[in-house]
């Protein structure tokens, strides 16, 4: 039954088709075709492919004009023409042909031309020659290096020390050896350039706190603590470091180490301390800022310093517990991938350490001189001394800025030149203005050190270095 009904319907449909008007059929036909087209065509139009032809590419290459490798430097750029020092940069220094009293080198202890140091270096030169011809790993480790590391560790009363062949590379390699991407570093705004570069190489998160402002540091640490509570899983693997300088190169101030140590334990952040200026200066035995404050050296995770100031040699070292320091022997880039320190420089540093250990009195003499000079410099009209009285680098800054950094720098240079005419060698503190993270106030007329005996005890060639420093525009 059902089939007959269906057949009947079919017949009826065919009949209807015959009877339908032609225009209707045509319309329906068009509609059907349209539907088919819609079904099988793409619903959107692809953009015209815009591949460049070879010729177009060649034209582009032809067209491209790079910037010059370096921009031209004007002939009177203040930093282009260096002072030329003839002869050794000791107590007396010959700058551009004029003999001056040297207030410009970091030779705090006067060890640069100490005959004992020279004799030790000479003996080493006669035994080992000059260069090491290899990195520490590949026959570049000399017995002198091991001795120096041993001596430094003993001197600083730490478990281990590691030496680098370049002062700048020391902290700049040490920081990225520990602090990696994702770790957090709290760093003082006034930190020196080597620290800045180390931080940059580490690619960690950097949090700057105001110079020597422990409240600000604690605020940042607290913020981080709150952040950590939100994401404890991440916090468990995020290392925290506090990087500070003992005696700030840029300001001549001392870091408040006891407070820092308290914060360290409270917030569980490790302290890296850069002591290039304070090593061999602060403390009864010249051990630096830890001795100055009487802090247990083990409370500081890593101390780094260069051997280019007080020790009057070349290179740098890190010291601390073996657990920390040993890691750098495979991870400190400046240690692994660089030729080791020429043995004669290591021998000079050992002898300088000997002298420091034998005459602990020199540090007291140095401090005495610092205080005296600091006081004497107070009265100069137009200039003020900033920084700690104990700092052997004095920062003189203009009492009133002229309003523009450039003019300030020029004025300071003028002062430096005038001093030079009167046979006193001072120098401007130099900065790469564009590169510094927080450019120190245009401190110019800087870094004067010298063997300024000032009637100091005989045989006490302690030196005072003072740095002239200028106020920022906004003060």
């Amino acid at each position, binding site marked *: 039954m059902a089939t007959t009904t269906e057949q009947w319907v079919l017949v009826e449909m065919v009949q209807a088709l015959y009877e339908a008007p032609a225009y209707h059929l045509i319309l329906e036909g068009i509609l059907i075709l349209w539907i088919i087209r819609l079904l099988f065509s793409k619903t959107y139009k692809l953009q015209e492919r815009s591949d460049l032809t070879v010729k177009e590419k060649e034209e582009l290459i032809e067209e491209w004009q790079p910037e010059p490798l370096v921009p031209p430097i004007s002939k009177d750029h203040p930093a282009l023409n260096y002072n030329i020092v003839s002869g050794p940069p000791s107590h007396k220094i010959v700058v551009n042909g004029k003999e001056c009293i040297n207030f410009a080198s970091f030779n705090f202890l006067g060890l640069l031309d100490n005959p004992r140091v020279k004799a030790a270096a000479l003996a080493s030169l006669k035994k080992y020659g000059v*260069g090491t011809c290899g990195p520490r790993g590949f026959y570049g480790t000399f017995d002198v290096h091991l001795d120096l590391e041993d001596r430094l560790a003993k001197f600083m009363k730490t478990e281990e020390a590691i030496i680098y062949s370049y002062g700048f*590379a020391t902290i700049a390699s040490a920081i990225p050896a520990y602090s990696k991407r994702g770790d957090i570093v709290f760093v003082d705004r006034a930190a020196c350039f080597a620290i800045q570069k180390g931080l940059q190489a580490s690619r960690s998160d950097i949090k700057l706190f105001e110079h020597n402002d422990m409240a600000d540091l604690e605020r940042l640490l607290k913020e981080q603590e709150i952040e950590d509570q939100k994401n404890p899983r991440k916090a468990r693997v995020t290392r925290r470091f506090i990087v500070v300088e003992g005696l700030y190169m840029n300001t001549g101030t001392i870091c408040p180490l006891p407070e820092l140590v308290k914060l360290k334990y409270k917030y569980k952040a490790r302290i890296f301390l850069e002591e290039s200026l304070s090593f061999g200066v602060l403390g009864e035995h010249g051990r630096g800022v830890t001795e100055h404050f009487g802090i247990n050296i083990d409370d500081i995770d890593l101390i780094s310093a260069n051997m280019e100031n007080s020790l009057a040699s070349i290179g740098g070292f890190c010291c601390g517990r073996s657990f920390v320091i040993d890691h750098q022997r495979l991870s400190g880039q400046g240690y692994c991938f660089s030729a080791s320190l020429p043995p004669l420089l290591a021998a000079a540093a050992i002898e300088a350490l000997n002298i420091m250990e034998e005459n602990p009195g020199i540090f007291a003499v140095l401090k005495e001189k610092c205080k005296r000079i600091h006081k004497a410099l107070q009265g100069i009209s137009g200039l003020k001394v900033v920084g700690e009285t104990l700092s052997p680098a004095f920062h003189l800054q203009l009492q009133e800025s002229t309003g523009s950094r450039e003019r300030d720098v020029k004025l300071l240079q003028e002062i430096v030149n005038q001093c030079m005419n009167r046979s006193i060698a001072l120098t401007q503190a130099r900065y790469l203005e564009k590169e510094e993270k927080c450019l120190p106030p245009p401190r110019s007329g800087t870094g004067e050190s010298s063997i300024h005996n000032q009637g100091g005890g005989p045989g006490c060639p302690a030196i005072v270095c003072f740095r002239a420093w200028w106020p920022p525009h906004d003060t």
Partner: protein
Amino acid sequence: MRPEPGGCCCRRPVRANGCVANGEVRNGYVRSSAAVSAAAAGQTQHMTQNGGLYKRPFNEAFEETPMLVAVLTYVGYGVLTLFGYLRDFLRHWRIEKCHHATEREEQKDFVSLYQDFENFYTRNLYMRIRDNWNRPICSVPGARVDIMERESRDYNWSFRYTGNTIKGVINMGSYNYLGFARNTGSCQEAAAKVLEEYGVGVCSTRQEIGNLDKHEELEKLVASFLGVEAAMAYGMGFATNSMNIPALVSKGCLILSDELNHASLVLGARLSGATIRVFKHNNMQSLEKLLKDAIVYGQPRTRRPWKKILILVEGIYSMEGSIVRLPEVIALKKKYKAYLYLDEAHSIGALGPTGRGVVDYFGLDPEDVDVMMGTFTKSFGASGGYIGGKKELIDYLRTHSHSAVYATSLSPPVVEQIITSMECIMGKDGTTLGKECIQQLAENTRYFRRRLKEMGFIIYGNEDSPVVPLMLYMPAKIGAFGREMLKRNVGVVVVGFPATPIIESRARFCLSAAHTKEILDTALKEIDEVGDLLQLKYSRHRLVPLLDRPFDETTYEETED
């Protein structure tokens, strides 16, 4: 160096041959590592097809790793790793004694200073053969050295010096290419004189008051030695790269860096803030493609054209012993208006008929290299580094180099050593000593390389390169080779991962003009013996040109055949 994520370059595989359509640069095929093993044989003919850019044959070859050796090497690492986990497990449960230093009690609740797996390799693999590195010496690093004997009673966790010295060990490890590491002679005397006059330190930076007359003298000499307008010297070779590259390029610039560049170049490039792209080692197709794409497509995201493009290459690559294809690099650099930074740390003094490095070796014009960088550590037996180039470049660096502003200048006696040794090489001291040294080194290099090849070792690199890597492959053979050689009074450098790809562990010899024929013959005899003992003679004398070497595919672009 890893590729920049989201680089503008298309991901489509590119027909390598298509890249060399300019007709200038044509030196073989690039193919993926998988294809290499299939078609290794019979590729040697590409070795010297260089389109007439080269004045001398450029014979650089890398024999393919035999399949069986590769498999065994991986198995070796697998076993070591398994045992490493086992030992770590035992240490964790205090069944095995822990030798390594531990965290202070007070700081146990701090976030761990090291990630656990970070030191796995050091603890379980490196520590087993640690005695092969950092061997302390107590003499001049000349042709023979005295090594301090040390022993370990706790499997290399700590060393004790016995107080004896192993005397007269043949030194195949130091970079003393021209033999200037000496404690007698004119260089040493001159350095001693300067030392007595100036002392050792400087206690200031170049820009402040540490610019001694000696430094100026040195820089003039370096400029005339290199044949460039001006030069500047720095206190450390590593820092010369890492502190000057950031002065030259910055954000918006592109750095094209060879994948095997030294850590200092990598660090400098990173610190500069420029975009870094990596081309395959010494592979000109890869370099050209990157150059072309960089100019055509501009910076990713912003689509601005690059401010400038800097190519970073080394003269001699210290782990491969290969020499940069400088004529081709210069042709490409000119064609695409890029700048060239050439690091001659190992090649200065060691290559070229007059010892002026790789530029001299190929007979090219130093003007064509924008930044000539090198170190004084190796051939000159001193320390420090230099940059030479046009006067504008050096003036700029004098005002903007990080090193000139913030770092202590070179020690005067070291400067004097460089001056006297460089004058000797230039013949300015009135002797032919320098020239003889250069010839001696070239002869030693060819002789030593030829003999090793004849013995059946797999040797990498260029036939004129004084850096000679001998392939060891298996991790166990690294330690064994180093120890066996020292037993036979030859000091060699052995290197493994991470300094090399994981399966390409090797020993490295650095030749020196100070090596006499007897010394080399003795060394070769011992190497031969140890080679038989450890079955190191893998060579089947099938050379694969440099371009077809298999690499870890970490590079920027994949290419197919």
